[in-house]
């Protein structure tokens, strides 16, 4: 039996933008001028962020989560594997989740296979290997043509897993990455291979590909209204169709939280960081203000038939997460859950109850939130929120999924 798994996700935002950034700049992504980078201020920033993740490990989180972004202020991790390498040497307990390496951006998937294998060895088998195709901004970052991205992504993902499991050398005769000699040194430590997580945004084709391979599906949405629950149901149905059965550890979601002594204090302490995150970090990504690059006709990676379906219900100029105008709207989006330990526990618990989700990937540090506040929130969460969530979820999962040995099931998720 296993309770909900609580992970600490760090995005590593650039926190030193001037107050007039939003007024002056049209985007925080791809075209955001790198003349804004301030070496004097940024010195030691990576250390601060890495230390927060190490602290998460000390506080008893089940793992630490990293991901890959380029040319933006939202996440300063063009190579999450470098941060992961640092974590292998500074932590000893939690999983190291990389969600994920953006496979179509790499010239050769073998590089990812090799680095992940190294990280699995260096961490004594704590790696969770995430593969992601990248979205709109990444298309522009590295000039990745959109039309065949998904196909290219799955060829790379399958080749990596094959290189981990099959004895080499062998030849890979692929459409996108033909290779004469695939022969991985080192091999990963975990057998048959590290758990694989794949993010998706509710597209049936991604769910199907994930289900076919028995991997874990991670919903990349930042808002948690009814959609999260629906995504879980959709994924469960896809699993059934493939003769498989849903359980909470096949599914993960991303959320943000801030915990303080009281609801009022929580809001007061985190508000600056939250607005910095929403208005600056999400500009160009999840804001209609400026130019949103994440999804749209300029990054045509879904087939035309799927685009037609999308357009039928599309409302031009609709509000995205970063367009919320006040605290009440933000609260309703269930994206950033702010409050006392009691409030946060109640709200996250109801989310788990409804969405039957076993992997919570939680962002604590938001925007320009100072180190001491991020740490205080993490500590309160670990001490006052996590125990209640674990207890309740264990009971819920045991009742709802009788007969599933979670330990085994979790181990079998690859």
């Amino acid at each position, binding site marked *: 039996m296993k309770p909900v798994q609580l992970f600490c996700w760090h995005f590593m935002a650039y926190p030193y933008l001037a107050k007039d950034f939003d007024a002056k700049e049209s985007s925080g992504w791809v075209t955001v001028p790198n003349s804004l980078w301030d070496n004097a201020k940024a010195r030691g920033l990576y250390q601060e962020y890495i230390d927060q993740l190490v602290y998460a490990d000390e506080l008893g989180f089940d793992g630490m989560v990293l991901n890959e972004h380029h040319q933006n202020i939202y996440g300063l991790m063009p190579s999450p594997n470098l941060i992961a390498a640092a974590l292998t040497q500074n932590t000893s307990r939690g999983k190291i989740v990389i969600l994920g390496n953006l496979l179509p951006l790499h010239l050769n998937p073998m590089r990812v296979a090799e680095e992940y294998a190294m990280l699995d060895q260096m961490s004594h088998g704590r790696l969770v290997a995430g593969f992601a195709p990248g979205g*709109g901004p990444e*298309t*522009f970052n590295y*000039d*990745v*043509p*959109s*039309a*065949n991205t998904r*196909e290219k992504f799955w060829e790379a993902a399958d080749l990596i897993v094959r290189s981990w499991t099959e004895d080499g050398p062998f030849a890979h005769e692929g459409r996108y990455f033909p290779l004469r000699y695939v022969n991985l040194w080192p091999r990963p430590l975990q057998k048959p291979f590290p758990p694989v997580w794949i993010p998706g945004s509710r597209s049936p084709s991604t769910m199907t590909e994930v289900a076919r391979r028995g991997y874990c599906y991670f919903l990349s949405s930042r808002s948690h209204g009814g959609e999260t629950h629906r995504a879980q149901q959709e994924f469960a149905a896809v699993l059934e169709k493939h003769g498989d059965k849903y359980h909470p550890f096949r599914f993960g979601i991303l959320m943000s939280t801030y915990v303080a002594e009281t609801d009022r204090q929580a809001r007061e302490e985190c508000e600056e960081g939250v607005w910095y995150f929403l208005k600056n970090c999400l500009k160009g990504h999840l804001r*209609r*203000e*400026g*130019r*949103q*690059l994440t999804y*749209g*006709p*300029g*990054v*045509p990676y879904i*087939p*035309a038939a799927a*685009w*037609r379906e999308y*357009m*039928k219900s*599309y*409302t*031009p*100029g*609709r509000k*995205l997460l970063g367009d919320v105008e006040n605290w009440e709207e933000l609260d309703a989006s269930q994206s950033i859950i702010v409050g006392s330990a009691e409030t946060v526990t109640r709200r996250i618990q109801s989310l788990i109850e409804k969405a039957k989700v076993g992997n919570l990937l939680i962002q604590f540090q938001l925007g320009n939130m100072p180190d001491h506040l991020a740490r205080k929130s993490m500590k309160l969460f670990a001490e006052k929120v996590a125990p209640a969530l674990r207890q309740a979820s264990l009971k819920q999962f045991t009742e709802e999924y009788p007969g599933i040995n979670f330990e085994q099931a979790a181990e079998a998720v690859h």
Partner: protein
Amino acid sequence: MSGRIIEVNQRKVQVLETGQGAPLLYLHGFADVHSVKENFLPFHEKLAQQARVIAPAHPGCAQTDENKDVDAIEDVVFHYLEVLDALELKEFDLVGACVGGWIAAELAVRHPEKIRKLVLIGAAGLFVPGALIGDVFMHAQPEYGSSYATLREMLFSSANHPRALELFPDGKGDLEDEVRRYQMLRLGSRIGFKPPYFYNPSLRNRLHRITSPALVIWGEKDNFVPRSHGETYAKLIAHCSGLKIIPGAGHSAQVEKPEETAKSVIEFLAK
């Protein structure tokens, strides 16, 4: 659906036809028939008064099947060799605009004998140092979730040109137009997203192989394919009558100034 479907190498290709006379193959660009509109635009109807205008939709555009093996301009050229065979076009006039102009130039350097006369309008395809072709993909992402003003500015002389607003309206346009625009961008991303960006570095040194008389037409204010590309085409194609500038037009001269542009084409073809 307009026009007819022919089958080429087990794939469907939509072909529109209008007019009578000598065959004229028209290859479309971004703001055009097949890439936005289902039917011919006034420019094509003008040409049809003098010629039999044949306009296939590119792979993946309109009702033409998508081909996921299209990775580069070369693949599109070979697709068109098959289309020419299927249409039994042995010798014809070739007019291409924008991306269609690029495909036309690539066909012409490979099979100059098939082409009676060649017209390029705002054609992509060349690398000209210091004059990058615009990023149509970035500008296809709306501002404020609904404005395509910068895309219109790229493809036309001004964001507020009535034809620009008709073909690329803000917000949500006609669903089928939206899908066609998307399909064209998807094809564009296959052949023109990854550098080389809507160009083929080898094309320049092949242009001397074109033996047919040629005319290069450019909008006065092209914000997508800079005018220096037109000058380069005009200079390097051996029998080129020169670069004809359409005053007041942007990249899509055939859409913005259909009368003048068609007149230039017709006069050149009749010479």
